[in-house]
């Protein structure tokens, strides 16, 4: 097999997503939850990423981080730092970060105007 690894073979030209300046909002219930989580320490940030996978192709990836290696846009809302990876910006522009209580426990919920559909469990979108 000739894997083309011994000399330079150009990678397949991938679809480069458009980079947009992300605007997002945080609901009052989500702000209350973030206040509980962060306290007075605002050195940490909420990182909202998107991974491939799930029934609909994309899954949200929420983390609380101090720093990240990813190339991100940083958005400040009411003193909270929100990081959005540049590579996912086209999928996250216009989202609302909400927090909802469910029978099985509470959790952050992303209301995304870019999502054409979501899977039954709400974990992924397309």
């Amino acid at each position: 097999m000739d894997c083309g690894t011994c000399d330079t073979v150009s990678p397949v030209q991938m679809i480069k997503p458009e980079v947009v300046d992300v605007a997002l909002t945080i609901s009052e219930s989500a702000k209350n939850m973030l206040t509980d989580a962060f306290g007075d320490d605002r050195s940490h940030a909420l990182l909202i990423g998107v991974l491939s996978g799930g029934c609909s192709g994309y899954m949200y990836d929420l983390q609380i981080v101090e720093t990240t290696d990813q190339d991100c846009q940083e958005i400040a809302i009411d003193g909270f730092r929100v990081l959005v990876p540049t590579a996912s910006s086209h999928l996250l522009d216009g989202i609302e970060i909400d927090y909802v209580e469910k029978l099985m426990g509470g959790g952050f919920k992303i209301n995304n105007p870019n999502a054409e559909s979501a899977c039954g469990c709400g974990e992924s979108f397309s």
Partner: protein
Amino acid sequence: MPIVALSDASLTLWRGADVLPFIDGLSTNKVAELSKGQLIRTVFTDSNAKIIDCLTLFHMGDFIVASGYLPALDKLLKHTSKKILGQDVVITDITQRNDLFIEFDCENKTNEISTFSAEGEITRGNIASNYSILVASKGNGPSSSDDFTEFNLWRITNKIPWNGYEITNSFHPFACGLEELVHQQKGCYIGQEILARMRSRGRQGKVLSQVDTLTCKPANITTMGDMQSLAIIRS
């Protein structure tokens, strides 16, 4: 054993730390635990659970090599590339550097199935007990036939679906005989909800069948043989 050349096969190299979880998250089989020297087949499906491409993955150690169907390659790359986002996944098309073949009617040992090995210039991947895929650098392959007739007759006898015949975007994996590539215990991927519902309700619609060539409706026949053919028909 007879060997047929695959003129319509694609070969791509997938490199990066996120390759296996990336493919695992977008296809039907459980590939995340694949290790060096192993081979696995998996199917990329669309939101209707119809087949985009069926890939044979070779774990080469530092990277994955994937054999698929050349006419489906563009669609596969469009489907996957927009989902890479910030992940460490780089795909290279190495189709033009290699020749691919199928050796069929062979007798692979049980412990050799789903593994591959290098035999001189040829990498031999044992897909099943009775057939293997051979990959060789351009011009260094084994002597082979370009005529698919004998291979197709063998496929009919052994009910083996093939790219462009049964494995097409018109069908989901259950319909064309690829149910063994749909892992029962893996999490979500595109098309999974539909396939899981079909399996749990026992409703798989059409299935791959050996049929009598003369009595089967011609439109249902996917691989035509003399007396027997393969067809995808309601079970």
